[in-house]
């Protein structure tokens, strides 16, 4: 094939020589900018004629040129044209022609997953990060790093689950657009952004598992102009991730490894020591008998003395250290790649072993991938196949149980063994036994999951002409997960059960099959050198089928032998679980962009979405967006000044929607009333009431922004102001029982959000040619939301919030979704020790009335963001990123529940030190907290609302890229090392217990990258 081509080429060359008659012969080689690899078949034409040649298999060409001056055009499909003026004198400069692929330089290109656009001519608000940037700030996963790089991308810190590597975080871009109640009801997070991996929609978990070393770039699409191409799934923003494509060249092997250590951060725990706890219990009256029975009092005295004796013997157990361990993490990625212009291949293997900071908390991943790209003439086929395997274990005793254990108990008995109970009341004593968390932890309990997944993404591209491209994609993902838990029959949970009912085994299987196809036509042409026209149109369909099977078994008689087959039977009255959901979507989309002389830009998107989740009345939905931009730096009046290399104003408006809802909520479904049949046979009744008129939740999204780069690229700024109006909201609302259902999914009210984002990068030292750059970055984000037109729809939620112990969220028109509602407090009255409340009208009262609630704070900070600096000096790089939060408040639930509101049950758990100090008493009248009492209920008041300002050392890193000569001496292509520390310190204005079920972690990671 190649030989024939060469002959043809030479024949062709000879012909042209004959035809023209030689004057000068231009000789040279055309290579690819990215890797210097020769490009075959590039057409080299003298402009304005049809005289030309094409390059041979080595990228070489010979072109004979007449005359003194002529313009030579090098063109190649998929690459930017190179136009060079030949002037007789510069023939030498034609020896090496470098061509860049259209979308090669990620810096300057916005990858939306559907189309690519030069950043300069894109009107949307987006941010793109390359693998180096991501890896510099963190090594755990892509999203963790994105959080540090872009303030609008938020990973919600989970006070409950801490740094549990097996719990998926809640993620938001530019805040929430949905009302509470949806996640609880349907298990899908309605605020989660859309994730696109290599052009295909994917799940949060896939992204979390993805080895960062495979990632080439990540783009966050924020506003309507950039997200509208994803239509009704896009209102929460889009995260587009591209994995690396194999590079051309001889076979190249690279290795990347991360070795990490994480340690639990228990500094937020402020628990009492043994002596303090006993004193607290004494003050709270635990050892005082109220029945007046002298024997009972004697027993309590004995009990107290026994504990006191233990304390005197030095017992002061620190339980929190028991379940934790240093978590070791190691991840490896090996990638072999190579090939030539026609065929390129890459084979990778990634292994990850993340050890959490709690014992038995592991996440092991194994991922293999094969990338193939075949290009012939006008066609390109690329295929990415990946197989992944996941193995997860979780601790079976939550961290909270250790935090509850009292410090005056010993961990081990005299024989050094673990007792079942820390305290077991004598016969006839009306008291509860206290289980030993170590007992349950040492049993043969487990909580584990395995998963196996297969993804194959195939893309076919046809470069019909230089301007026109047809692309067809098909992606298939199969994921099977198997979750199993087992509780030993010796677990204290089963103490009151019959011998044959103890122990519990549960099994859940989740099978998922997803396929997605897409056909698109892309057109891009510069007309008359001034009018740049881009257009994309396509059709997309997807099918997501998910099945969940589950069952449980009980009646294990032995701790050690744990096979499910040893179970005695199924729990009485338990039926197998089965649920299934099938979601389908089909869409047409079109995107067009026009730029006049690179100065005036206009973009539009339109998408027609159909989704099976929505009722027949509302099956299809339109999404549109319009964006405009003005490249001021391209204006003639700016051409004289080099000061601005980028000065762009842009604005966009559009209405992306949200589709993160359950599969069948628009339809009424029925079920068999299986508990009885009659002479007429079986019967069915309503299972769930659908709302066929449910309108898609949509968010009208306005964004104005500016991008500035000036002073020789030393200062780089991006500013955005946005305004989002979500109308209607889609919410699960509790209804009057007379409607026949107690909740219904419906459209109710609206939410308005305004916010701004700013990112500034200053380079006081900027000498890229020498490899010396010092950057200082500051970014900030702020937003404010309010409900509108919700009226009384959420009355029931408000009522239940009012009557609940800790609920401080309310739904009122004009109210912020993040506002904290509580009655204002004037503090503790020194004279009486009672809390003094401030009523709505400003008067003072000792009586608490829930109707005096007002907004006493907002958990949304006024401004938050990151301050960072990074220094590159030759191969050395040092970076430091601090997260700041300012102007928000928090309802301090630690104070509320672990200082006050300690009831007769909670007093037996270990508590916050502050529960003992600063309490009101006859001798300490100026205390902040009420007197110690087990029966007094403390109501939510502003006394527990505190300013939540914080500064967190989110990421520190130092790295070194070995110079070529050293690497070569070591017979390596390249080598770099890096040390990254995350969540190093945390300074906050408020002390709240975090990491209830799982502690937070600080970690340090050493990364190594070697190319052979």
């Amino acid at each position, binding site marked *: 094939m190649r030989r024939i081509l060469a002959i043809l080429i030479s024949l062709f060359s000879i012909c042209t020589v004959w035809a023209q008659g030689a004057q000068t012969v231009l000789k040279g080689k055309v290579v690819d900018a990215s890797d210097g690899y020769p490009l075959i078949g590039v057409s080299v034409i003298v402009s304005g004629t049809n005289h030309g040649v094409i390059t041979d298999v080595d990228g070489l060409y010979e072109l004979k040129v007449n005359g003194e001056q002529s313009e030579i055009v090098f063109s190649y499909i998929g690459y930017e044209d190179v136009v060079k003026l030949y002037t007789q004198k510069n023939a030498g400069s034609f020896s090496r022609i470098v061509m860049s692929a259209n979308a090669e330089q990620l810096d300057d290109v916005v990858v939306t997953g559907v189309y690519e656009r030069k950043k300069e001519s894109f009107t949307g608000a987006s941010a793109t990060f390359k693998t180096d940037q991501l890896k510099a700030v963190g090594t755990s996963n892509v999203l963790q790093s994105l959080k540090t790089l872009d303030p609008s991308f938020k990973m919600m810190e989970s006070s409950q689950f801490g740094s549990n590597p097996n719990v998926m975080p809640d993620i938001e871009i530019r805040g929430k657009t949905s009302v509470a109640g949806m996640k609880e009801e349907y298990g899908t997070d309605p605020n989660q952004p859309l994730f696109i991996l290599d052009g295909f929609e994917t799940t949060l978990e896939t992204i979390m598992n993805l080895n960062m070393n495979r990632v080439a770039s990540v783009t966050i699409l924020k506003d309507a102009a950039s997200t509208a191409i994803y239509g009704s799934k896009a209102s929460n923003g889009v995260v587009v991730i591209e994995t690396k494509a194999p590079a051309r060249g001889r076979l190249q092997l690279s290795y990347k490894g991360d070795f990490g250590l994480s340690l639990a951060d228990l500094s937020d725990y402020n628990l009492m020591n043994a002596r303090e706890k006993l004193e607290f219990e004494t003050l709270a009256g635990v050892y005082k008998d109220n029945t007046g029975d002298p024997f009972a009092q004697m027993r309590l005295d004995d009990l107290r003395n026994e504990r006191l004796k233990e304390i005197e013997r030095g017992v002061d157990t620190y339980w929190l250290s028991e379940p934790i361990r240093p978590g070791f993490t190691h991840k490896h990625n090996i990638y072999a790649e190579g090939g030539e212009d026609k065929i390129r291949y890459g084979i990778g293997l990634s292994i990850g072993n993340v050890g959490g900071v709690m014992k038995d908390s592991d996440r092991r991943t194994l991922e293999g991938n094969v990338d193939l790209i075949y290009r012939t003439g006008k066609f390109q086929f690329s295929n990415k196949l990946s197989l992944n395997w996941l193995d997860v274990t979780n601790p079976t005793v939550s961290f909270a149980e250790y935090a509850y254990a009292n410090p005056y108990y010993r961990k081990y008995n005299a024989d050094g063994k673990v007792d079942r109970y820390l305290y077991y009341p004598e016969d006839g004593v009306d008291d509860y036994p206290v289980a030993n968390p170590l007992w349950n932890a040492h049993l043969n309990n487990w909580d584990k999951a395995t998963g196996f997944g297969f993804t194959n993404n195939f893309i076919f591209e046809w470069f019909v002409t230089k301007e026109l491209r047809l692309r067809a994609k098909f992606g298939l993902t199969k994921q099977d997960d198997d979750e199993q838990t087992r509780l030993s029959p010796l677990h204290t949970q089963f103490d009151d059960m019959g011998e044959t009912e103890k122990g519990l085994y549960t099994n859940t299987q989740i099978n998922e099959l997803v396929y997605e196809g897409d056909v698109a036509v892309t057109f891009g042409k510069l007309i008359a050198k001034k009018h740049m026209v881009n257009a994309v149109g396509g059709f997309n*369909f997807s099918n997501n089928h998910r099945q969940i099977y589950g069952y449980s078994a009980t009646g294990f008689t032995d701790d050690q032998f744990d096979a499910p087959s040893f179970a005695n039977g199924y729990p009485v009255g338990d039926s197998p679980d089965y649920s299934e959901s099938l979601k389908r979507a089909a869409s047409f989309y079109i995107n067009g962009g026009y730029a006049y002389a690179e100065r005036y830009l206009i973009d539009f998107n339109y998408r027609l979405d159909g989704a099976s989740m929505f009722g027949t009345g509302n099956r299809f939905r339109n999404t549109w967006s319009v964006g405009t931009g003005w490249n001021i730096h391209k204006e003639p009046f700016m051409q004289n000044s080099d000061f601005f290399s980028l000065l762009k104003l842009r604005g966009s408006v559009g209405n992306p929607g949200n589709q993160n809802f359950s599969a069948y909520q628009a339809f009424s479904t*029925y079920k068999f009333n299986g508990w009885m049949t009659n*002479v007429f046979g079986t019967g069915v009744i309503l299972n*769930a009431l659908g709302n066929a008129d449910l309108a898609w939740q949509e968010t009208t999204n306005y964004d104005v922004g500016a991008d500035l780069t000036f002073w020789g690229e030393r200062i780089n700024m991006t500013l955005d102001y946005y305004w989002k109006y979500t109308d209607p909201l889609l919410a699960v609302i509790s*209804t009057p*029982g*007379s*409607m026949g259902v107690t909740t219904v999914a419906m459209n109710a009210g609206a939410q308005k959000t305004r916010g701004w984002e700013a990112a500034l990068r200053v380079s006081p030292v900027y000498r890229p040619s020498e490899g010396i750059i010092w950057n200082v970055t500051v970014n900030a984000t702020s937003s404010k939301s309010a409900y509108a037109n919700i009226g009384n729809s959420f009355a029931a939620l408000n009522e239940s919030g009012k009557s609940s112990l800790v609920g401080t969220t309310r739904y009122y028109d004009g109210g912020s979704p993040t506002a904290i509602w509580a009655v204002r407090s004037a503090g503790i009255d020194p004279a009486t020790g009672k809390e003094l409340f401030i009523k709505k009208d400003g008067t003072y009262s000792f009586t608490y009335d829930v109707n005096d609630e007002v907004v006493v704070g907002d958990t949304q900070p006024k401004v938050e963001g990151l301050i960072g600096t990074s220094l590159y000096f030759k191969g050395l790089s040092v970076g430091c990123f601090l997260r700041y939060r300012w102007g928000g408040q928090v309802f301090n639930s630690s104070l509320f529940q672990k200082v006050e509101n300690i009831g007769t049950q909670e007093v037996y758990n270990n508590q916050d030190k502050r529960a003992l100090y600063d309490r009101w008493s006859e001798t300490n009248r100026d205390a902040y907290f009420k007197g110690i009492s087990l029966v007094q209920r403390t109501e939510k008041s502003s006394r527990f609302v505190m300013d939540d300002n914080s500064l967190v050392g989110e990421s520190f890193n130092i790295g070194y890229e070995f110079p070529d000569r050293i690497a070569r001496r070591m017979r390596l292509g390249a080598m770099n090392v890096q040390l990254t520390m995350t969540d190093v310190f945390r300074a906050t204005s408020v002390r709240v217990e975090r990491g209830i079920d799982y502690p937070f972690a600080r970690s340090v990671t050493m990364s190594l990258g070697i190319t052979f």
Partner: protein
Amino acid sequence: MRKVFTYIAFVALMMLCSCDAWLDVKPYDKISEDELLSSESGYMKLLNGIYIELNSDMLYGAALSVEMVEIMGGAYVIGTDNSVWGNYADLAAYKYGTDYWRARINETWNKAYALILNCNLLLENIDKTTVRFSGDNLKVIKGEALALRAMLHFDLLRLFGPVYAHNPEAPAIPYYKRYSVTPNEILTASQVAAEITRDLNEARILLANDPVRTSGTMASAPADGSSTFMYYRNLRMNYFAVTALLARSGLYFGDKESAFKYAREVIQAGDEGIFPFVDRNLVTGSPDDPDRIFSSEVIFALSHSQRNKLFKNYYDPSRIPNYVFRMDNDLMSNLVFGGGAMTGGNQDDYRYRVNWVATGANRYFYKYSDMVDSGNIKNTMIPMIRLGEMYLIAAESCSENIGAGVAYVNRLRANRGVGNLQSLTEDILRYEYIREMYGEGQMFYMYKRMFAPVLFSSLSSKNPVPSDAVFVLPLPSSETDN
């Protein structure tokens, strides 16, 4: 080039057309409405599902037949020992506001309206369906669903509405006539009454060709094993059940004229042998196996596959030391089944002889105890409306003067093995109600209708003075808050 575009456009068009069908996803683990109601049998299953669900403990499986509403109707002696009687003492003292009873009342309310919603979904779909029904089935299904909807609303009105005779314009309950995702407003009692009457009348017209009118109740399976759908008419809301409900509701709404008219029509049907009086041999002939619910007289009953739970859970003397529901001894021996001409009570009464069995010093209620003949359809029946009530309604409504109705009561008594009354008073009529309908959840409504003291005891001091606090249940908070 142009060809390519034409081709693409053509494919796109094809896809758009097929999209809608492709997007029409049917769940596999649930039954979708479209699929269910795409056939006649789907409608039949849905209708049957409603009948089955009426047997729920929150409705006529307990709360609205033998338990909650019957306690409120003073049927049982409720002890004071909480460890035995739990929350029942609160209910007997009409403390509807306790957490427990609020939750229970809420449950009943929600369940009743949930079934009303099922009726409405059925009705709304059947009105626009293109399914071809065989014979008269469409009319029958629609008629029964309409009548069930009316019946449920009627019972809710009798629980939560005002004392109708005193205050017909007071706000009562919402009346749901169609499925809606927005709440309906609360109507006044008279508005609800009008809706109930309208639904029942429409149902009656739809059921005009009900085979019960020509072939009787057909309370056995067809010999050829074909569909039972049009059999066992006494287990369905048949033409006469609707008529009887019209009589019952007419009387409740103070429309004695219609009450009498409809009651007479059912009595007529009884005379024609559709609902014959119970064969006295079945009652007295075989004492071990009596037909205690007088099944042939039942115009409409639910069929509960474990009906003996009603007996086991509430009336069975072997439940002791747990609570057992029974009538106050003095009330029984001095008034209900004693007391001579003053009350019409007599121990020869079949209703006494077969239903009240002595164990120790007390007599216990055996109406829901199974007949020996297990698997008998009669053993599954929970009577919802019976012929005896028609006689009592006729007696009360035949004239403004209650005394004029004595003949109807005597006709009934003759079939209960007791002699004629000389005269009829409201008091005697109430005793007759107790004798006839005990354990069927109707007594509370009777006292409420007549605004009479609920008879817990023979001592009038122990019986609550009639008041709204006794007779009007508070609406669930979900109703008033939202």
